[in-house]
């Protein structure tokens, strides 16, 4: 669907056309669900994506077409996900960092990293590790390294300055590697600790 078709659909949906809205839902439901899945995990992703579409329908007349519809949708999805109640309060990791984390070599040495990434176990570990990253940092990390957005786009979607977006991605990345190392083999001591 190109931007003109999308603009036409959003205008019709804003005028009350459920058929236009239905087409928008079908075209973008994957994006909304994927983002909710990465930020909230499988358990809450469906409820969140339903809530997103309710908000979209309610507020679509507020979409002026200044940005792409997908950018607007990212915004609503992230607001919904970030406002969802955090089930577990996560502690800040930065003062608990005892060792430099690392991921063990894949079995078989230089295995194909993509094949490794696609294994079911690895996917679950990644999802679990994401859950340990603070929500706003997680959102920025997902947008940068999974959705491939630029820092300017992340800043726009999260409604923060560029520098904040960059900082959140950086902290999210660091928290993710710590969590992933923990998921992999627990907190283990490595030779040559810092300090």
């Amino acid at each position, binding site marked *: 669907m190109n931007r003109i078709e999308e603009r036409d659909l959003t205008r019709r949906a804003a005028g*009350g056309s*459920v058929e236009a*809205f*239905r087409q928008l*839902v*079908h075209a973008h*439901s*994957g994006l*909304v*669900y*994927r983002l909710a*899945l*990465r930020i909230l995990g499988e358990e809450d992703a*469906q409820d969140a*994506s*339903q809530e997103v*579409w*309710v908000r979209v*329908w*309610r507020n679509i007349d507020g979409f002026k077409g200044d940005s792409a519809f997908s950018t607007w949708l990212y915004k609503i999805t992230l607001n919904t996900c970030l406002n969802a109640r955090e089930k577990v309060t996560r502690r800040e*990791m*930065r*003062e*608990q*960092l*005892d060792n*430099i*984390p*690392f*991921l063990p070599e*894949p079995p078989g040495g230089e295995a194909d*990293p*993509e094949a*490794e*990434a*696609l294994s079911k176990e*690895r*996917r679950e570990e*990644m999802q679990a590790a994401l859950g340990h990253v603070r929500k706003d940092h997680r959102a920025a*990390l*997902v947008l940068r*390294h*999974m*959705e*491939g957005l630029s820092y300017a786009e992340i800043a726009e979607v999260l409604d923060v300055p560029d520098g904040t977006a960059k900082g959140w991605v*950086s*902290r999210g*990345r*660091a928290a*993710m*590697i*710590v969590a*992933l*190392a923990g998921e992999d083999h627990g907190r283990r001591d*490595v*030779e*040559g*600790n*810092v*300090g």
Partner: protein
Amino acid sequence: MSAVHGQERWEVLEIIGAYAAGELEGEEAREAEQLIFERPDYRRLAESYARMLVMLSTLGSEPVEAPEAAIDHAIRRAYVSAFMRQAETLIGELGRTYAHAFVYYLGLRPNTRESYGGGI
């Protein structure tokens, strides 16, 4: 372990993460390379970051389909909401028509003279 050491380690973690993501340039990149060159554990960290970023990107590019239930729910809600909106409008219009009819019936409508702008 003191909070200061934790903070320093965290900073190193962020620098090497930014380097692995290819986001450092010039002097910053050289500093990160120096760190990685000097310390085997930092080198392993950089390699781990590189693997993690590949995994994130691979996972991110996998197609994810929303469950049918989520799509159906969204569309159903929109239909109900559109129906309610129309019903509200219809009832509002009906009410106004009845009110006008009632006013007319009671003879309360003021006698208005139509004007076509002709002056006389």
